[in-house]
């Protein structure tokens, strides 16, 4: 053996190495590529503030399309009553992100139907009280729960003035990738955050509403439809006395 390098052997090793590396990395690259059908082009920004306008004058009594739309989108309809549970008790324990409420004015007796959900406050009490910071507000105004750090203490449910949150009381057999959930954590409407992160411009409840009572959009963009509608006519913030500056506004109540 002299100091001469065996070139062929060296080439073989480098080609084999490259092939091995490619076989490890390639599937990841390709899988990643398919998963990112709609690439996330920009980070979440505080220039945007997502919100909703609900026109209760368009909301029809007895209709709950928004509720079923939300439940299908976020996999809430996949939850099954645990064996042995009392149906009435279970109904109080199963989660809802949106519900219909009918209210009567104390003075005039006027009856109004409306959907209620997380109001996506600028200053959310649920965020204030959460000991671990699991209850948080994204810079684009979406209030949601980090299910990795939620310890299930339910203090946020005590603190929410809109009773918008639900606790998962049972084991979960089936769930959607876009809406992961597990027993013992709290959750609530997140304005279909998966759609936000994948370029969607509507929410499931808005899509489901045949009467056009729900309008979703960017409150900060003066040219957005929601901003224009909010400017056009008076709107109401629920529990305005608490000065939480909600992202969900109502018309007609």
């Amino acid at each position, binding site marked *: 053996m002299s100091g001469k390098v065996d070139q062929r052997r060296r080439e073989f090793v480098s080609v084999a190495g490259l092939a091995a590396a490619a076989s490890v990395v390639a599937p990841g690259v390709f899988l990643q590529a398919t998963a990112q059908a709609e690439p996330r082009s920009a980070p979440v920004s505080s220039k945007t503030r997502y919100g909703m306008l609900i026109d209760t004058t368009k909301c029809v009594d007895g209709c709950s399309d928004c509720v079923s739309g939300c439940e299908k989108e976020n996999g809430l309809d996949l939850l099954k009553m645990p064996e042995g549970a009392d149906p009435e008790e279970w109904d*109080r324990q199963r989660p809802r992100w949106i519900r219909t409420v009918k209210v009567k004015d104390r003075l005039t007796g006027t009856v109004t139907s409306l959907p209620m959900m997380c109001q996506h406050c600028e200053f959310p*009490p649920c965020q204030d009280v959460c*000991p671990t910071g699991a209850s948080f507000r994204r810079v684009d105004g979406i209030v949601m729960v980090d299910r990795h750090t939620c310890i299930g203490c339910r203090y946020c*449910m*005590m603190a929410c003035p809109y009773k918008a949150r639900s606790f998962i*009381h049972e084991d979960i057999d089936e769930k959607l990738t876009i809406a992961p959930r597990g027993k013992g954590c709290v959750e609530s409407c997140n304005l279909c955050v998966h759609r936000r992160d994948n370029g969607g411009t509507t929410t499931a409840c808005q899509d489901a509403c045949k009467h056009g009572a729900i309008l979703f959009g960017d409150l900060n963009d003066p040219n957005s439809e929601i901003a224009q509608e909010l400017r056009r006519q008076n709107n109401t913030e629920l529990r305005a006395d608490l000065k939480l500056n909600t992202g969900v506004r109502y018309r007609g109540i």
Partner: protein
Amino acid sequence: MKKIYYREWGIESPRYWGILAVLGVFLAVGGLAALYMEHHGHWVTGMNNEIVWGVPHVFAIFLIVAASGALNIAAFGSVFGKKIHKSLGRLSAMLAMSLLVGGLLVLVLDLGQPTRLIVAMTEYNFKSIFAWNIFLYVGFLVIVAVYLFTMMERKASKYYPTAGLVAFVWRLILTTGTGSIFGFIVARQGYDAAIMAPMFIIMSFAYGMAIYLLMLMFTFKLDGRPLGEKLLGRLKNLLGIFAAAVLYFVLVYHLTNLYGTENHEYEAFILRDGGIYTTLFWVGWILLGLLVPMGIVFHPALGKTHGGIIAASLLVILGGFVAMYVIVIGGQAFPMAMFPDKVIIESGFYDGVNGQPLHYAPSIWEFLLGVGGVAVSLAATLVGVRVLKLLPVSLEDEIVDPYHS
């Protein structure tokens, strides 16, 4: 004042182990109940999306509040220099730590994700009073342990007054934190009041004293140690004064609420129309929990009997549990004013339709978990007095207070 000697609790072994075995059964059943709830999820409890804190929280908060109160007896000795209370300090500190541990266990085992306790220890949101309470509770255990050490170790005795002061201030902050869990909730009519914090402090004085009195009488009686009537008389008088102080705070709380129209519906709910909550408030909390024990301890004849003092202490404790039930559950059962100028006439999520209270039927598992927490507190105290020199050999009046007559 004669020198006071302390000795381990000397009751016969079979009796001691027998007591621990009984407590052990409750402890084991409580543990199994916690496992059952954790395994299945909270659907097996009576808690739901409306009443999110149930009986476990009633037990946990009662024990935590009583813990800080149980430390008062020691604090009277070191902070206010009451010599008569000094001899009572060791048991006071031990009881305080034990009650806190029992309460915390119940609280933690009721979490939706109890295994994520480590998250609560590593991720903090400092705007949350809950996060602060984690520090306050852990700090309390450490500070009281040091305080107890300064009482027991002669070489550390020069730090005793400082440790006592720190422990006393800390316990006041701790109960402020516990009361503020409710005081800081702006959403609910029954909470959102600054008076919650001082009210919880005064409640802690009463509940801590009641538990302390029972524990003192129980351990001394079983071990045949003399307990001076004069000393007992002072402690039971304090219990009566603390009960009166709780009554005063309850009165101020409700009178303040009654003044503002916005709270009238809530007040009507608790004081008149709330069904079980109204009954519990008047009969359990006010009558049995405060007025009757006050009547007993200040009664010229009854107040001097051991039976009377035991009955009064038990009633104050019962009243304490009822008070927590009215505050924690009653406060949630009253529907939130989501539409102050409107009445909810239909809802897909039990929003208190037509002002009806929200439904809660506690399950046996919740009670068992709570009782398990009480068993932990009692067992820890009894193990403490057995292995450490916490109990004075004698608390005869001539020994603790020679000038009593």
